[in-house]
């Protein structure tokens, strides 16, 4: 006779309600960890997928993600001539806000060095890659654009020819891919008054920074020959003086340990607090369930039940609450997090760690319950 199941079955609605409560706590924990992973994943998306071994950026700057960077648009040709370099592509990225069908859309416009790069590394789920040097765009689904939509950026219209999924920048803005030349044009867009003032030599009255960066690119993405020594290539380019060279690991470190450091610590701290709350709540639930049964435990002892019968009942209920709550929490997480505006990355490794934490919490909580149950004396039935 399974006493744990009998007890739960006698008050199923209460048990299910407890599972839902614990489940929501676990959902929140999965969400916090997933948000942390999602932010990192989003931030590193381009760095990890664009196929860059080295990034050539403006000298003295840690660009283009952690800091701004502006270099000559012909820098790719200089880099291409360095021994060991298999390919060099121009990279431009700028945040843009535009109006589409009466709503404001915020996008991170990213340049693909067409025709070398037509976006083959993008996660295109509908449509196609870029096929024209101008006025085509691939938009992330989070921007709410559809194939065939036409959007106005600067003074030009762009047709959406492809849709990606899960491609956003570190701020969560959806990526909009156009050719590098288009991206440069979009980034340097100026209104008529600015152009007029610039022609009259009064550029300082307009957006000087914007004007000075006009026609420049943010970085050159460098792919190396498999046999090339990255450090040697890096040293050669570094000696030019006007640029700096960053590796993929440097970009990781700049983003994670500098730009996103506070955010990461904040989220991890919240996750820690949440795990502590989760531990306390689950422990209290399991301990309280044991306390409620002390009279029955005394009765079980009176009729001669071995300690293993009592221990098994407590442990089974703790396991059902912990693991059942985890299953419910994971179910909630899978159902609701895809609807969240930011990516919540639920990774198997994190889930394993969480389930391990839940098992440990349930184990510790049940050990308190068991310790209390072992102190119960059979004669307490008479109390």
């Amino acid at each position: 006779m399974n006493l744990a199941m009998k007890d739960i079955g006698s008050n199923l609605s209460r048990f299910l309600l407890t599972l839902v409560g614990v489940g929501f706590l676990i959902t929140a924990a999965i969400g916090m960890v997933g948000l942390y992973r999602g932010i990192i994943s989003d931030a590193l998306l381009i760095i990890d997928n664009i196929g860059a071994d080295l990034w050539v950026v403006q000298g003295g700057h840690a660009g283009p993600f952690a800091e701004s960077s502006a270099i000559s648009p012909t820098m790719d040709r200089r880099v291409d001539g360095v021994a060991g370099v298999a390919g060099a592509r121009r990279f431009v990225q700028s945040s843009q806000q535009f109006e589409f069908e009466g709503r404001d859309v915020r996008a991170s416009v990213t340049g693909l060095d067409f025709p070398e790069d037509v976006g083959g590394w993008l996660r295109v789920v509908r449509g196609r890659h870029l096929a024209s040097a101008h006025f085509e765009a691939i938009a992330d689904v989070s921007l709410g654009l559809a194939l065939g939509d036409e959007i106005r950026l600067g003074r030009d219209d762009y047709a959406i020819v492809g849709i990606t999924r899960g491609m956003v920048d570190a701020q969560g803005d959806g990526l909009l891919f156009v050719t590098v030349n288009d991206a440069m044009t979009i980034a340097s867009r100026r209104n008529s008054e600015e152009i007029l003032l610039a022609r009259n030599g009064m550029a300082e009255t307009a957006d000087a920074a914007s004007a000075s960066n006009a026609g420049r690119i943010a970085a050159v993405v460098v792919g190396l020959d498999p046999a090339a020594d990255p450090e040697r290539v890096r040293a050669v380019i570094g000696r030019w003086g006007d640029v700096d060279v960053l590796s993929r690991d440097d970009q990781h470190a700049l983003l994670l340990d500098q730009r996103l450091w506070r955010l990461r610590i904040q989220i991890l701290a919240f996750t820690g607090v949440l795990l502590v709350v989760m531990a306390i709540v689950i422990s209290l639930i399991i301990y309280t369930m044991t306390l409620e049964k002390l009279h029955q435990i005394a009765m079980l002892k009176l009729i001669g039940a071995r300690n293993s019968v009592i221990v098994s009942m407590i442990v089974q209920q703790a396991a059902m609450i912990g693991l059942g709550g985890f299953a419910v929490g994971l179910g909630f997480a899978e159902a609701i997090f895809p609807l969240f505006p930011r990516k919540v990355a639920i990774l198997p490794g994190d889930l394993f760690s969480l389930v391990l934490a839940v098992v440990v919490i349930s184990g510790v909580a049940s050990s308190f319950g068991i310790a209390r149950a072992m102190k119960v004396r059979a004669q307490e039935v008479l109390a």
Partner: protein
Amino acid sequence: MTRSPILSVRDAARHYQSGETVIRALDGVSFDVFPGELVGIVGPSGSGKSTMLLIAGLLELPTGGCVAFEGEIVSRPGGSIAGLRDFRRRKIGFVFQKANLIPFLTAAENVALVLQIDDVPAAAARLHAERLLAALGLGERLDNRPARLSGGEQQRVAIARALANDPPLLLADEPTAALDSVRGRQVMELFRTIADVRQAGIVVVTHDNRSLDLFDRLVEFSDGRIVAVTDNRPAARPASRPGAA
């Protein structure tokens, strides 16, 4: 005819220290219970009845004297109560004022549990429980949880549970206190029948004067001592002697 007692309590004492004062809850009580005998223990509150039941039921150790079962000493000062759990399961059934049924088990499960704890297979335990409950007039209430049973029905389930292992000794503490006179009498008649048919020794602590005629012996306690023994049987079994009831 001389028969061996199932339970022998010899010079049992239970003294508590309360500050400078020693409280003598039980003070040198000797007591035998024979198979098929229904023994009533009466006396005012605080006279030591329940303490005697705890010691006889191996739920507390005496601070003096000993308790023997079928001639073998099983409990004495300094012993281990925890080590007596298996022995208790096989040899003693308990019934209390409150039925103390496990609320999340049905009547049949409450009874079968005792057997399953003793490693009887589930199906056999269930069958035995059903037969036992049917014999006590609860054949229609097998799958009812305690909350759906009347006080009298709950008490009969508790008696069935106490009998499940067929123990040679049954100890009951005020089993009719929560019942009306009719049901109280029914329960006491049930004890009488169990003693006669199963030849179990039954000790009942009671305040209920209406059923005293059913007992073979009445042992009266006062201030932790036995002060009187009344033998209701036409021919008493072993003769009463000072200090031994």
